[in-house]
């Protein structure tokens, strides 16, 4: 295949890439061309093979067949180190950071040449500020939120001055303002000649940012498009093969208060944690309340306090279904009807190396029907797992499949399904659709709405404003450990909430407005 003499060579060209795993064909005969300075979207649902394809380009995985051309020369990319050497950088969807090391230490591990720590820290500061992603090089990773960790990943790549930057779902944890800023960064990189492979399922972003798109479905290329000339619907059609389902939500008058927090103050033992200051919140039966905010503003701490994972001293701050709950553990709170879906799916919401069947049992207790007199009732566990899989359309190899063999979105569907089907009275969900494809996200949102319609009190913590406006009755904002009043979604706007996210709201109105 000789390119026309007039045009430059493509920076990267994939020809007939095929990769089969023991249980699934991840990529089949995939072709892809990325030109210099082009922002190229790779669009597809979870499990469509996007991540595998990127891992092949980055040298993490080897293709079974097909070839990779770099500057029109066939290359064998044996390892990420080699990929970085020829100028490929990658920001993974699942971060590859060592939690017990600092930012600078993590970054120095990825550099292929030795740089003195002081110099490196200085470079990290410069680059991160230059691109509007400020990070402290000396912070430890484990104390950082998902959003902050992503910044580390991006800065790590930028330090290598890449000629092709692969971004895997980069905006899922950013505020609207930060997304715009990231886009500026990416556009500037592109104008400097760096090609960008942008993996996402957020159609609006792709339409505003990307020059070209290649769409994958079931491991195959189903088409290429110029996103700015496509509509939301036509792109979705290409991606999922049918029209996008819509969320259905009708107005509803909420009933009694199910979850109540009053004057919650909680200092943190984590030096990089956030101290919660005078949090007031009420969630009533049949109501969905959303908490917006940039990650690292106290969401983690608030959720741990609500779920019972962070022990609290006795006071009169928390009530679950009318019962004082300050000193109750997470399993005691669960028996009061509180269910919680955490942000981290693998390792917290599910045990990675256990089957879905056993994971279905994880949050059960005596009285749920799966455990009887301290004994596990395997037939019931099995049928429950199969029921969750069927009800929530979890794509997996049956109830014996290990949790870590599922894609992020499918595992989330399983966890959401498990918690919903265990009949909650209060449901708390963190980042329900983070990294989940459009089809699955709509399914999860609809399931939450259905829950609210069945008079469950639902609290959603999300960094996706669009989502909160889609499904919430009331929205509050958390900023620097303070919680804004929860205002009816219909009486506020993305702009106002965006402003509140920077901490500009007044606590004094809290009581009046939330009762309005």
């Amino acid at each position, binding site marked *: 295949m000789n390119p026309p003499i007039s045009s430059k060579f493509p920076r990267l060209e994939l020809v007939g890439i095929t990769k089969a795993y023991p249980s699934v064909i991840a990529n089949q005969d995939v072709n892809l061309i990325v030109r210099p300075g082009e922002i190229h979207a790779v669009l597809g649902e979870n499990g469509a093979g996007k991540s595998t394809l990127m891992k092949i380009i980055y040298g993490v995985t080897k293709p079974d067949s097909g070839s990779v051309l770099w500057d029109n020369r066939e290359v064998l990319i044996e390892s990420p180190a080699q990929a970085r050497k020829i100028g490929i950088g990658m920001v993974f969807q699942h971060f590859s950071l060592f939690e017990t090391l600092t930012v600078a230490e993590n970054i120095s591990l990825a550099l292929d040449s030795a740089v003195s720590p002081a110099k490196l820290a200085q470079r990290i500061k410069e680059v991160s500020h230059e691109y509007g992603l400020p990070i402290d090089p000396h912070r430890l990773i484990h104390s950082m939120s998902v959003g902050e960790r992503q910044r580390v990943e991006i800065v790590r790549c930028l330090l290598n001055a890449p000629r092709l930057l692969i971004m895997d779902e980069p905006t899922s944890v950013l505020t609207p303002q930060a997304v715009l800023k990231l886009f500026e960064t990416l556009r500037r990189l592109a104008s400097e000649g760096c090609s960008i492979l942008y993996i996402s399922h957020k159609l609006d972003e792709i339409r505003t940012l990307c020059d070209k798109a290649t769409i994958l479905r079931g491991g195959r*290329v189903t088409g290429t498009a110029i996103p700015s000339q496509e509509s939301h619907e036509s792109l979705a059609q290409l991606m999922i093969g049918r029209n996008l389902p819509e969320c259905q939500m009708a107005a509803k008058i909420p009933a009694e208060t199910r979850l109540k927090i009053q004057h919650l103050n909680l200092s943190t033992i984590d030096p990089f944690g956030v101290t919660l200051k005078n949090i007031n919140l009420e969630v009533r039966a049949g109501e969905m309340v959303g908490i917006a905010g940039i990650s690292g503003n106290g969401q983690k701490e608030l959720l741990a306090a609500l779920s019972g994972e962070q022990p609290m001293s006795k006071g009169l701050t928390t009530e679950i279904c009318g019962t004082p709950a300050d000193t109750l553990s997470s399993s005691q709170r669960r028996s009061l009807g509180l269910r919680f879906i955490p942000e981290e799916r693998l390792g917290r919401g599910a045990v990675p190396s256990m089957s879905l069947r056993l994971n279905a*049992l994880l949050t059960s207790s005596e009285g749920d029907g799966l455990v009887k007199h301290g004994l596990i009732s395997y037939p019931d566990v099995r049928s429950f797992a199969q029921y969750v899989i069927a009800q929530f359309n979890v794509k997996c190899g049956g109830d014996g499949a290990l949790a870590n063999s599922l894609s992020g979105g499918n595992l989330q569907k399983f966890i959401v399904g498990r918690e919903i089907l265990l009949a909650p009275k209060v449901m708390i969900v963190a980042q329900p659709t983070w990294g989940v494809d459009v089809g699955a996200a709509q399914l999860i949102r609809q399931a939450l709405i259905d829950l609210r319609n069945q008079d469950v009190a639902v609290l959603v913590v999300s960094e996706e404003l669009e989502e909160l406006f889609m499904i919430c009755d009331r929205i509050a904002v958390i900023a620097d450990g303070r919680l804004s009043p929860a205002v009816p979604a219909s009486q506020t706007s993305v702009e106002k909430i965006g402003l509140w996210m920077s901490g500009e709201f007044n606590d004094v109105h809290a009581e009046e407005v939330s009762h309005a």
Partner: protein
Amino acid sequence: MPRLERRAKPSRVMMFASPLIAAVMMLITGYILFSVMGKEPIHAFGVFFIKPLTTTYGVGELFLKATPLILIGVGLAIGFRARVFNIGAEGQFVMGAIAAGGVALYFHHLEAVWILPLMMLAGIGGGMAWAAIPAFLRTRFNTNEILVTLMLVYVAQLFLGYLVQGPWRDPEGFNFPQTKMFTDSETMPLLIEGLRTNLGFVIALFLVAVAWFFSFKMFAGFRMEVSGLAPDAARYAGFSEQRNVWFALLISGGLAGFAGMVEVAGPIGQLQPVISPGYGFAAIIVAYVGRLHPIGVLLASLLLSLLYLGGETAQMDLNLPSAITGLFQGILLFYLLAADIFIHYRIKPNPHEARCTITPPPPPSGDMI
């Protein structure tokens, strides 16, 4: 060069085949080893692995030596499943023996049926108390239980040495460092006249069944396994990590202590400076060779017991040093750990060679927009 590739899910076949592969590799290495040492390998194998089992007495000895391994191994396996690494079962074994021996000496003048059960409880209690130290330090100060349990082994052994050479020494024992022999009502009843296998073996078999029931049927066993596999998931689910650590250490310590009691109230019949040929450490191998599964522990205990017996006959018939037992134990564990990688990975032929054999797919067709 062939490469390792991660399997989609762990291979159950390899899970069970791995100990067998390790055993075969151990035999092959043993073959080479015997040849190098100038022993006829087939004959040596006969002496090592077959001869001990040719008499009824030998089979009795097999069960006798398997008893402490089963008891300790079952307890360790429960702890290891929860990722609580009690490496010091040897020390808990010794403390159990001391506690049981103390009861025996205190009531030496009496003859009563309740003495033996009391010794059993003392043995369990002694082992539990010794294991409670690392449990407390881990839950209170987050110390590493591997180091603490291991160090306490030496403390326990020295304490036993002090007792039998000092306050508990038999006054009529010609100054030998050992206690009085326990009386009949202080020793485990034998199962069959003429064999040394005692009641302890039956109790061990019963405990295998109990451990299986606990691990696979009870929710508490599931909780412990989750705590081991994913601590964050356990916290999210509301399982207490502290309870987990305490439980794992007390169970494994208690069973090791009981094994110590069975040993001194069984074949030894008194306290001596050395009461174990390393049962507490060999039981770690037993637990892993047995796949942390109670039934597997039972089978692995018999194999390791055979290694002890074979080591003894090899000393007598072949003039080999007693270290031969430890050598075979080590070789077995070494190959087991190596073979275990194939549970999660498989060998894949060289991708470059593979690429040449696969015909290239047809060029992209008309489904491109």
